[in-house]
């Protein structure tokens, strides 16, 4: 048994000595001995006993039981009573509390020691249980304090409401946020705080999350604080559940008034910025128009002047004007492109194109320059690359033009190598590598890092020496990216620079004959071609007119749309060149008026829109108003002529319609094919007329696309229909179209068909009317 520190409280000296001897011999230590309860209580903290032996009758005012009770208030300690009485009252008092033990005097040593042992055991069990209970109680208190501190010190309101909307708990922040005291809040309904116009929606929100048991939700709404201030609150709402029943809501609410203000300011700032950007892009578009128009005039007049007799000196001056104008035009185009890229308005205009022709034409531009600088310019296209690809040829041209121009600009000796290689090819797509390497001045690493940034050339003095806006490569990179490609550059100072582009293209769906691309312009065909030029700018009028007259085209000028419509009433034209921005009646309205006209032939007249505002939206507007094609001002004379030439068969057909007489329908043949069925006479006529009408439109579209295979197919389709009407000459011509290879022959044959189909339809119409009349009679 473990030795204990024991206090003995006994008023009889002899008994006390006896007890002490007994305890000491059992190995225990008597640390204090006293005869009065009061003395024991006074010294209890000093001695910290592990057990007390207590007599009932003591020398002081307190008896043993009272003393024991007082001590147990102070420290937990087991007490064994020594009593001479065995009266039931005292015993009951002692027994009531299980922590006490007792022995009845006189006792045996063993009896005492056993009771001490038992009491100590009992006490230890009880005490530990108590200690445990006490500990969990303290832990609970600590946890509560911990959370209460958090709840009281967060910057968000935390509160609970019951299903009726009454507050059941609010934290101090809720009090300061609302301005109402805790007592007031707990007597309020939640909706009392909500701004009137939101009351209903907040109510329905809570109803909703209750009905659908949405455990996590968020809601923002304004509340009115006690002082009348309006505050915006953003709150997270959780359901409070008790045994799976929703009993209320736990809400964490944040004051988001300032946040909202910032957000609103941001929105306003964003919309302002967007407006500004739009104004900028509109301004740029307008500026480009305003600058291009007079520049167009300058370039045009210079071209005309070049054709007159000039001295060498004058020619040199003229060349200077031309090159300055071209430079200026380049800058305007660059700035406009960059503005478009910035505004995400740059769109690719993908068509099928001949890649070899494209490179050929770009290289041709620089050949003279290279000869002047005495540098080599070589280029290779890998033969595995399909001749025709689908992509944006104008933008590809721009990319190559820029890169090649740069290479030549910065190369003084050696040469430039342009390589085009096939990287990969699937059934639909082709990936092409274009490498442009030069032996020029090159760049160091610092310059390389900035090469694609706007307005940078390696150093300022460079732009003074070499010229240029420094926008070229920025634009190139953006275009390459829009095209879905990549561009990279390698360079060493004094060693040269190498640009590598990887560009994806689609393979062409239609098969192109190679003759289409290099088609010569047939000057003689345009003789006596009648063009109506609708243009208000005097210089442009003169330039375009002179350029066209060089091809013996007959040009009539209308100052504006209204004049044009007047002229069209009486005169016949093969084609209209229509400026868009004009006083009185602009190009768009004029085109609409023409397309809506009752005159079947005038309605179909080809119109080429002339626009200085060459942005995609503008071009789309031109087409929407009825343009067949467009030209971006300023345009080179040969581009204009080529474009007009594509319309030649249609224009000719239309104008011939007015004066020709078509092959007459053979009534007998037609009736033969009806096989004596008079019932289908009218119906068949109508069907024929509809077919011819739709095939005419299809032909027009394919002529503009120069799609010979489709044209042959159309010819094939209409041939039997012509035969039914006994139009053998027409049928023969359509038959021959299928076999023709020569472009001129096809054009002529197509013109013939285009002229005659409407005339045949007129005949059919007449027959039909006759038939109708005979039927009603």
């Amino acid at each position: 048994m473990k030795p204990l520190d024991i206090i003995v409280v006994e008023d009889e000296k002899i008994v006390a000595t006896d007890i002490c001897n007994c305890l000491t011999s059992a190995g225990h230590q008597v640390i204090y001995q006293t005869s009065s309860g009061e003395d024991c209580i006074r010294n209890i903290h000093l001695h910290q006993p592990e057990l007390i032996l207590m007599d009932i009758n003591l020398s002081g005012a307190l008896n043993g039981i009272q003393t024991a009770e007082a001590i147990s208030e102070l420290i937990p300690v087991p007490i064994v009573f020594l009593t001479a009485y065995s009266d039931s009252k005292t015993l009951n008092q002692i027994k009531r509390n299980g922590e006490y033990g007792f022995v009845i005097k006189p006792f045996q040593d063993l009896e005492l020691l056993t009771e001490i042992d038992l009491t100590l055991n009992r006490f230890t069990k009880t005490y530990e249980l108590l200690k445990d209970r006490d500990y969990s109680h303290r832990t609970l208190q600590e946890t509560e304090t911990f959370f209460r501190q958090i709840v009281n010190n967060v910057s968000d309101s935390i509160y609970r409401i019951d299903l009726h909307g009454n507050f059941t708990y609010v934290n101090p922040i809720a009090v300061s946020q609302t301005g109402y005291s805790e007592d007031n809040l707990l007597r309020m309904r939640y909706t009392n705080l909500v701004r009137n116009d939101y009351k209903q929606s907040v109510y329905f929100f809570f109803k909703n999350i209750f009905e659908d048991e949405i455990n996590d939700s968020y809601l923002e709404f304004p509340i009115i604080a006690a002082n009348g201030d309006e505050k915006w609150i953003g709150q997270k709402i959780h359901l409070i559940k008790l045994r799976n029943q929703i009993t209320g809501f736990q809400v964490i609410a944040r004051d988001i008034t300032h946040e909202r203000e910032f957000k609103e300011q941001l929105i306003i700032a964003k919309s302002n910025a967007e407006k500004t950007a739009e104004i900028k892009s509109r301004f740029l578009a307008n500026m480009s128009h305003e600058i291009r128009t007079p520049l167009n005039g300058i370039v045009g007049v210079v071209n005309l002047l070049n054709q007159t007799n000039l001295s060498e000196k004058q020619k040199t001056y003229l060349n200077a004007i031309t090159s300055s104008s071209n430079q200026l035009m380049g800058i305007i185009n660059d700035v406009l492109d960059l503005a478009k890229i910035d505004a995400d308005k740059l769109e690719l205009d993908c068509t099928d194109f001949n890649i070899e022709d494209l490179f050929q034409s770009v290289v041709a531009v620089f050949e003279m320059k290279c000869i002047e600088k005495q540098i080599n310019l070589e280029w290779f296209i890998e033969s595995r690359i399909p001749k025709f690809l689908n992509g944006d040829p104008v933008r590809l041209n721009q990319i190559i033009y820029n890169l090649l121009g740069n290479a030549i600009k910065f190369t003084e000796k050696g040469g430039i190598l342009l390589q085009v290689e096939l990287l990969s090819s699937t059934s639909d797509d082709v990936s092409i590598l274009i490498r442009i390497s030069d032996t020029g001045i090159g760049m160091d690493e610092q310059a390389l890092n900035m090469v694609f940034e706007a307005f940078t050339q390696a150093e300022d003095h460079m732009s003074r020496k070499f010229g240029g806006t420094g926008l070229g490569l920025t634009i190139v990179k953006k275009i390459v990216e829009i095209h879905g490609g990549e561009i990279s550059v390698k360079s060493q100072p004094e060693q040269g620079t190498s640009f590598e582009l990887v560009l994806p293209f689609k393979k062409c769906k239609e098969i192109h004959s190679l003759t289409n691309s290099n088609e010569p312009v047939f000057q003689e065909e345009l003789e006596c071609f009648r063009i109506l030029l609708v243009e208000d700018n005097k210089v442009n009028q003169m330039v375009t007119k002179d350029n066209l007259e060089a091809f013996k085209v007959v040009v009539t000028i209308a100052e504006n749309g209204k004049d044009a419509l007047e002229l069209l009433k009486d005169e016949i034209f093969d084609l209209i060149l229509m400026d868009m921005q004009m006083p009185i009646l602009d190009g768009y309205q004029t085109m609409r008026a023409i397309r809506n006209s009752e005159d079947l032939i005038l309605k179909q007249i080809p119109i080429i829109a002339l626009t200085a505002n060459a942005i995609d939206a503008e071009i789309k507007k031109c087409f929407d108003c009825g343009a067949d094609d467009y030209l971006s001002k300023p345009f080179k004379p040969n581009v204009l002529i080529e474009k007009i030439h594509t319309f030649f068969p249609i224009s000719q057909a239309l104008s011939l319609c007015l004066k020709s007489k078509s092959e007459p329908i053979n009534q007998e043949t037609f009736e033969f094919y009806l096989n004596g069925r008079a019932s289908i006479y009218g119906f068949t006529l109508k069907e024929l007329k509809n077919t011819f009408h739709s095939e005419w439109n299809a032909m027009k579209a394919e002529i503009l696309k120069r799609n010979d295979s489709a044209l042959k197919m159309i010819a094939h389709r209409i041939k039997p229909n012509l035969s039914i009407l006994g139009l053998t000459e027409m049928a023969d011509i359509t038959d021959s179209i299928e076999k023709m290879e020569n472009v001129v022959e096809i054009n002529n044959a197509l013109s013939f068909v285009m002229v005659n189909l409407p005339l045949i339809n007129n005949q059919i119409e007449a027959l039909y009317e006759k038939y109708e009349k005979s039927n009603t009679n």
Partner: protein
Amino acid sequence: MKKVVVIDDNPLMFHLIKGWLNPNYIDVQYLNSLDKIIPMLNGFKPDLIISDILIPGISSTELIALFKQIAYPKVLVSSMDIQDIEFFARQIDAINYFNKPINPKLLFQFLQDFFASNNK
């Protein structure tokens, strides 16, 4: 009642053939493409197919392959040269072929003979 299918991208040809034939004896149906030919034939079960050769959406090689699978009697019509039509007709075992526009008298005669021999 005899049943005939006309396949041609030019609806006029169908209207004419239908117009020539007596609707009380011959039911003429029309297809302007070959997309739905198989289900159509399975449902209609014609006695004869009259088809053009050049039909948009299908090459002549594909057309031959398709027609080889079709067991119904076939007649080809086209505005091609007659030798070319004959070539195609042989490829697909067509029982006859005509130049476009079809001479109604010839077609009429052919149909009469064809249906007469079929009835035996």
